[in-house]
């Protein structure tokens, strides 16, 4: 083509220009997000005012907070009329808030170790990318934690663990013939082991023993975590069994499960705690005394398992019928098809729901303060607020309790969302 030499024709491209000020950066963001319409402007101003008033009212309270004082009166003297928090109570009563007021102070390292090890034991369960050999430690953990927290001779948990391992070995060995046969043999073997081992541990009660701490001495946040983790970990398998029972086509088994689940879900947890507190003892053989913490764990486990059963039922129902039919057509029996085909998929769907229920359970452990157990809230309401030194410091104490629960529950729910995303992408 002929070159165009006319002077009014441009020969080179104009350089790309930056967008006008109103269409980029902060200005664009503000105009789109904060002041796009009159209503939006009002909302923005309103929110800014709310944020401002919260900061103005609470900042001095935090900044002037007193960390060193012996009583609330001393706090007020130091503050001298200025608005300020009395955080000294948290500092002075910290051990009480965490461990309760009876746990021997020299033994605080035991629950601490148990919590650290709990994180280590949970890690391979929570994050599948970690080496799965670590799951072995997770299996040992409950027995180790029992020894650390309750103390006594380590023979008891060791025998409990070995009995369980022996039972599982027997199950592996005999379940090839039939699932039910394997289970029966395993149960018999494990019970035999425990009974025989019981004599051994009773005879050597002081072997390597830590100072024994009775259950009623547990308290504070430790009690919440204890109740929460135990109830959750027992109720997950129980909930799965209940969900399977509810889906079963054997009417009697189905109706037992339906009645159990609907009954538990229909009543508030507090009534179940009343049962644990005043009624459950009537159902145990006379002359046995089961301590309150165990009774509460039983009721909380029932409560949680009913809710987990409903979540798992949702997961089972979400599976296409083709999966069940495929398992049947491969000639798998009920136990095999559930274990190998149905449950892995159904549980994967219901993991977020199970995590939500478990977070709810952890929050609900605070209700035990109503039946006068001294968990975190119970410690605050009872032994701390009732003393003359710290009478009336509601905000600091309840705020601290709220913050602790927020950190735990929020991180767990974030984990659950993360897991949901992980599982979602793996399906694509």
């Amino acid at each position, binding site marked *: 083509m002929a070159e165009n030499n006319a002077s009014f024709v441009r020969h080179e491209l104009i350089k790309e220009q930056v967008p006008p000020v109103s269409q980029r950066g902060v200005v664009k*963001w503000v105009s*789109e*997000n*904060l002041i*796009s319409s009159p209503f*939006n402007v009002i*909302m*923005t101003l309103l*929110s*800014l005012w*709310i*944020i401002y008033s919260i900061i103005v009212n609470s900042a001095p309270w935090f900044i002037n907070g007193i960390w060193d004082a012996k009583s609330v009166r001393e706090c007020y003297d130091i503050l001298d009329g200025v608005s300020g928090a009395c955080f000294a109570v948290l500092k002075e009563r910290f051990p009480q808030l965490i461990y309760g007021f009876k746990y021997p102070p020299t033994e605080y390292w035991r629950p601490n170790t148990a919590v650290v090890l709990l994180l280590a034991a949970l890690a391979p369960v929570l994050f599948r990318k970690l080496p799965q050999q670590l799951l072995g430690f997770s299996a040992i953990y409950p027995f180790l934690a029992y020894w650390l927290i309750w103390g006594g001779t380590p023979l008891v948990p060791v025998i409990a663990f070995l009995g369980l391992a022996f039972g599982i070995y027997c199950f592996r060995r005999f379940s090839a013939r*039939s699932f*039910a046969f394997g289970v029966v043999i395993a149960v018999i073997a494990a019970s035999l082991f425990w009974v025989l081992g019981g004599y051994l541990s009773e005879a050597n009660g002081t072997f390597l023993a830590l100072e024994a701490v009775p259950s009623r001495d547990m308290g504070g946040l430790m009690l919440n975590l204890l109740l929460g983790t135990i109830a959750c970990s027992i109720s997950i398998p129980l909930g799965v069994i209940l969900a399977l029972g509810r889906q079963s*086509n*054997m*009417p*009697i*088994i189905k109706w*037992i499960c339906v009645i159990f689940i*609907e*009954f538990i*879900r*229909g*009543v*508030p*947890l*507090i*009534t179940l705690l*009343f*049962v644990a507190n*005043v*009624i459950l*003892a*009537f*159902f*145990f*053989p*006379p002359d046995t005394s089961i301590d309150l913490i165990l009774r509460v764990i039983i009721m909380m486990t029932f409560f949680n398992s009913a809710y987990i059963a409903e979540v798992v039922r949702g997961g089972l129902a979400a599976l296409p019928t083709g999966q069940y039919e495929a398992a049947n057509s491969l000639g798998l029996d009920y136990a095999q098809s559930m274990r190998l085909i149905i449950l892995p998929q159904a549980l994967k769907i219901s993991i977020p729901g199970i995590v939500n229920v478990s*977070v709810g359970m952890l*929050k*609900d452990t*605070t*209700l035990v*303060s*109503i039946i006068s157990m001294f968990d975190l*809230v119970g410690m605050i*309401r009872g032994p701390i607020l009732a003393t003359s030194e710290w009478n009336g410091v*509601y*905000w600091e104490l*309840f*705020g601290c*309790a*709220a913050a602790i*629960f*927020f950190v735990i*529950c*929020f991180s767990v*729910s974030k984990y659950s969302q993360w897991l949901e995303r992980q599982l979602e992408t793996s399906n694509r």
Partner: protein
Amino acid sequence: MSTSISTERETFRLSMLLNDKRYRSYTFQFFALLVLICIIAYLGKNLVENLAKAGLNISYGFLEDPAGYDINQRLIEYNSQSSHLRAAFVGVLNTLLVAFLGCIMATVLGVTAGILRLSNNWIVAKLMTIYVEIFRNVPILIWILIISSIFMGVLPQPRAFRGENPEATMLWDMFAFTGRGVYTPGPIFFEGSLVVIGTFLLSIVSIFAFRRYARRKLYSEGKVIKTSWISLLLFFIPTIIVFYALGSPIGLEYPELKGFNFKGGIYARGSLISLWFALSIYTGAFIAEVVRAGIQSVDKGQTEAAAALGLRSNFIMNLVVLPQALRVIIPPMISFYLNITKNSSLALAVGYMDITSTLGGITLNQTGRAIEAVLLLMLFYLAISLSISAVMNVYNRSVMLKER
């Protein structure tokens, strides 16, 4: 082939109970039932032995005895000479009252927060996220205690309203917010008030009838009748006319400061108010999440399709988006209402006399009838839960996608 099957059926062996799929389920169920019966019998035996040992029996006669304690917040007549049954009934009404109020306020809060979380306004959306996360992740018991301590600590006591230059004043001379509770004007009914209420109810019925008529007109003749203005007029005019024609038969009684406390009007105790607030703010955070998820669950294509059909934006919302969102929103919403009812049992922590505090609290402690009281308590909550879930099942069936 058929002959071989029939011969197999004839030779029934005992091992078939375990190995044959046809009979195995009977074996399992038989054993399950057996185990269940054994467990129940064992527990029952323990119960009987323990009761005999403690010299107790199971009897509901205590419900007739005078309760001997006072209930300060009540909807029906009650005094300390009334029976335990009546006290329980007062408690039931109080439970239903706080649950009802809580459901309304939680819905309002939750729907507002849920919609605002989807707002384009970044600050508003973030604020609502903070609200939802903070309230969802902290136990409700802690919220109840915090809110009740705010209520008692921040609001002025009734004595602050006294004197020439009181520290606190009533809002519009009608509402008094005190640390002991909230006093609001209450209605007094004179003669003829029934007519006014009747007219009001009639006008509401007629609004529905009118809207129905308008819709039928639209479907049969294609005629659009403006319903909004006429409904509004129907709502107000007849009642107001009857009200003044009869000489204002419904009046308001204002709370007045008498001595150390307010008298007259409606008095809601601080425990009720703080429980109500805590329940609704806590549950509102959960409802907000459900509402948000429900609105987001409606595919964007639905809105676009409706717009392509030429529907206006309010029709798009009412006829296309909301019906589909509600299908997702309502079932969890109802279970949250149930949760409010069940969580209202935490009234025990702030001293509000609901059924758990009367029957499961004071009555239980005074009479020592633990088994009976807790059983009645559970039956009450169970009855509420089961009836609500029955309603929910009916609803679910009616909105289920009709698959053919």
